[in-house]
């Protein structure tokens, strides 16, 4: 019964863009219907999830399906429910935001298409999450993946957008290929596509399934160095789609990885070490690349890679706990990783939406073209600031809670006396500390350059806060960031249930027993009280005796706004320190003589993995493959013939292998 609620919600979300197709391009009825359908889908789904959490029992449903090996069997356990919450909640908030940000009246060319695929992304994500059958999982996966391709290419009249969406498509094809291979291996081992525990699996196939899953899901999640599609895709998509993609869509890769790991037998320690290493690399290099960016949305996209790294660190601790049979590590690591999935969805959604509000007002994504927005967009600024504090993992907001859980897991694991066990968590904790420091550097840079100081160009001259439809969804996300930060105990039960997919958890190592949630709330409350009290005290003291003046400029009488420290100058030292990975491109002209003429300076950090590693490699392989070009003459009927040919060959081969 409860499963039907979710099915109806999926149906509503998936069809949310369809009614709009029957209205005129100029009509805004379609977008309102879509928002209504997505909101009611969210309400239905959240009700069902609430039931799953309160009852503690998974909801199941199984229907027959004509696809061979497939079954319409869905299972909503606590883990699936945990991922369904951001899928439905953030998509509904994004749709409300879209009413103003991508209003049909202004975007008649692509508004209806965007809404159609937006709903399909949500439905695909939800199907993937609840699927209890490999075929259904892949079907949902492909719906979501291909719909996202169309959504990224919303503004396909821009060449950059077209390039970004094709890059995304190519990357996802590789990822899906890995997942096909993974599910084929699972089928080979279990003779069924049902997603069941495979405790009896020998290490060989288990490792193969793990590695294929890590590749396939890692590409979707944007794990460095598989992240190549992510920065440009997030920058090219409309902001509410970026919020959905960064906050929710890439997490489906994490869901797939956690689900697959939960089905596999007890892992060896090196899986955990691999996950911790990947997490550390993604985290540190993700934020290092972010620091070098000039485009606010590309910068936020690189932070998604960083946060996926933090989530992987949590999962790595959990896998280590499983390998060593230490349930407290499983609980701390997995709860930290999963909570960070939510938290990242919340604050990254908030940041993308508020960055979208800035782009909406200023018509530029260049951080160094903004500046001085705080007095003009006071509400958007404070919302962005909340998101920035949260993403840096600072107390008293939600990012700190999940990072603390991961830290506790890492510190706990590092107390082991075996060298192969303690070294990786120790270094991972140092990496997490470095990530925190660098993220702070990056977000003070963005907030300072875009919102503070003087305006740097005329782009922000007429900027003002957006309407309620832009602000309300951001306000909801910011409020969630604060609630989880101030009262983390509220979600402890949900996390405990979700963590149990990695095996039963004894009550002595439940999250409430391991994590200092009440102390954390107390410390946060004291912090807030001190800040508010200090603020009130200072405000009272400043009521008299204050005067206005100019910013101190060493006696220079005519400071100009172009003399401000730009975001690139702020980042220059850190970009230099990470030069070995970032490979920044600097264009600098010589400055000759005593009274030089005007000169130019430009610096740019492109994706080094894509430009320096993959493109040359693909070019050389591609040149070699050109010899097979005659197979691909561009005629459709020949391609159909290939398909028939391959099918017949497959049937013949299958008959030879399994004669009936």
């Amino acid at each position: 019964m409860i499963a039907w609620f979710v099915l109806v919600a999926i149906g509503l979300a998936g069809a949310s863009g369809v009614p709009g197709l029957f209205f005129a391009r100029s009509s805004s009825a379609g977008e309102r219907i879509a928002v209504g359908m997505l909101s009611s889908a969210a309400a239905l789904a959240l009700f069902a999830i609430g039931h799953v959490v309160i009852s503690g029992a998974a909801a199941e449903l199984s229907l027959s399906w004509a696809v061979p090996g497939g079954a319409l069997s869905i299972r909503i356990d606590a883990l699936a429910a945990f991922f369904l919450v951001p899928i439905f909640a953030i998509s509904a908030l994004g749709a409300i935001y879209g009413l103003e940000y991508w209003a049909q009246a202004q975007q008649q060319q692509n508004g209806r298409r965007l809404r159609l695929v937006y709903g399909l992304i949500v439905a695909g994500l939800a199907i993937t999450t609840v699927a209890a059958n490999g075929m259904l999982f892949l079907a949902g996966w492909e719906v979501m993946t291909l719909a996202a391709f169309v959504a990224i290419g919303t503004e396909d009249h821009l060449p950059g957008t077209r390039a970004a969406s094709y890059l995304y498509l190519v990357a996802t094809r590789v990822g899906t290929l890995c997942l096909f291979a993974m599910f084929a291996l699972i089928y080979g081992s279990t003779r069924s596509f049902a997603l069941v525990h495979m405790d009896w699996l020998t290490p060989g196939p288990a490792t193969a399934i793990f590695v294929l899953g890590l590749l396939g899901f890692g590409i979707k999640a944007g794990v460095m160095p598989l992240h190549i599609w992510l920065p440009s895709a997030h920058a090219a998509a409309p902001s509410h789609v970026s919020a959905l993609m960064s906050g929710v869509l890439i997490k489906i890769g994490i869901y797939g990885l956690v689900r697959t790991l939960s089905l596999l037998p007890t892992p060896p320690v090196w899986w955990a070490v691999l996950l911790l290493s990947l997490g550390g690399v993604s985290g540190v290099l993700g934020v290092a690349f972010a620091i070098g960016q000039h485009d606010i949305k590309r910068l936020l996209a690189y932070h998604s890679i960083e946060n996926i790294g933090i989530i992987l660190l949590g999962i790595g601790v959990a896998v280590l706990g499983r390998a060593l049979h230490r349930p407290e590590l499983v609980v701390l690591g997995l709860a930290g990783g999963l909570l960070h999935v939510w938290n990242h969805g919340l604050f990254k959604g908030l940041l993308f939406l508020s960055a979208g509000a800035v782009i909406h007002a200023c018509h530029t994504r260049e951080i160094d073209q903004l500046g001085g927005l705080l007095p003009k967009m006071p509400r958007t600024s404070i919302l962005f600031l909340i998101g920035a504090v949260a993403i840096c993992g600072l107390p008293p907001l939600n990012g700190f809670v999940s990072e603390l859980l991961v830290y506790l897991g890492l510190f706990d694991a590092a107390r082991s006396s075996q060298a192969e066990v303690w070294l990786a968590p120790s270094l991972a904790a140092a990496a997490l500390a470095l990530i925190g420091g660098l993220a702070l550097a990056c977000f003070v840079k963005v907030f300072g350059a875009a919102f503070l100081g003087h305006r740097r160009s005329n782009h922000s001259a007429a900027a003002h806060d957006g309407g309620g439809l832009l602000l309300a969804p951001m306000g909801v996300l910011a409020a969630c960031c604060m609630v989880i930060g101030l009262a983390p105990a509220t979600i402890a039960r949900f996390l405990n249930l979700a963590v149990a997919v990695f095996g039963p958890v004894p009550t002595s190592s439940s999250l409430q027993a391991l994590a200092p949630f009440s102390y954390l709330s107390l410390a946060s409350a004291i912090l807030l009280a001190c800040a508010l009290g200090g603020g009130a005290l200072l405000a009272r003291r400043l009521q008299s005796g204050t005067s206005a003046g100019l910013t101190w400029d060493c006696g220079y009488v005519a400071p100009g706004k172009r003399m401000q420290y730009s975001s690139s100058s702020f980042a220059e030292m850190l970009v230099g320190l990470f030069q070995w990975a970032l490979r920044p491109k600097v264009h600098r002209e010589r400055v000759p003589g005593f009274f030089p003429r005007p000169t130019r300076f430009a610096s740019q950090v492109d994706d080094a993995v894509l430009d320096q590693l993959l493109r040359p490699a693909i070019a050389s392989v591609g040149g070699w493959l050109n010899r097979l070009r005659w197979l691909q003459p561009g005629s459709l009927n020949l391609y159909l013939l290939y398909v028939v040919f391959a099918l017949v060959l497959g049937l013949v081969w299958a008959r030879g292998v399994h004669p009936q």
Partner: protein
Amino acid sequence: MKLLQIATQLAVALLLPPLLLGVIVKVKAFFAGRVGAPLLQLYRDVWKLWRKGSVFSTTTTWVFKAGPVVNLASVLVAVLLMPLGTHRALLSFAGDAILFAYLLALGRFFTIVAALDTGSSFEGMGAAREATFSALAEPGLFLGLMALARKSGSVSLSQMLGPKLLDAWFDSGGALVLVIASFFVVLLAENSRIPFDDPNTHLELTMIHEVMVLDHSGPALGMILYGAALKLFLLGALIARLVTPISTGNPWLDWLVFVVAMVGLSGLVGIVESTMARLRLLHLPRLLVAASIISVFAIILAR
């Protein structure tokens, strides 16, 4: 009795910090052959600044005023988490060491955005340096904490620096020496002391912390000065306890040991400042990376 302990602890934590900066100044004056400012100068400065008027740049917004307030608030909460000598922290739980580090980061976040709020390129420079160097100092601090956690079996500062510290010295003193060395570098970096930053320099271009607060005046500047003293006190307390792992059994004698250790540490900072030049800006990351690597050795030794 319990109430008296809490009151003593709060009084020491809130009243001692400005004295430490006075000690540093005196030691530096001694080396330079001067008399130097009085020991209690900072108390007078803070009190005087609190009663003064202030000038605000027309560029600044509420963020500029929020900077000192949030910084002071986060340092004050961090005071609750730090054990002083043999005395447990007022608030201690598993993971308080991490909260401690992140509270200092929260203070830094708001100090930096307040600096950027002025739109001054000097303050931008200082902010960029502060953000860069403190990011590089984080791994050193956390690896040092990791070594202490491995030794004590806990992620709580009060346990790490608790009664078992003396056993830890006998057991793996080498690790603790390395941790102390690494924390001392972190202390100098986080508090903008020589060789990272010269608090007495007069050229805006070369400053780090001082230039970030260039535009603050009056009560807000007082809050900043007091917050900075508290921060030095907190990181100093971490090192002072590691150096004096003993417990006399008498709480008042323990307080004396603690205060002497803190004054001694301030003297050491003063000696470092008097005998060293500040390093070239571009060489600072190497020192911070070295501190992290020292901590890794400490982890290896802490069994």
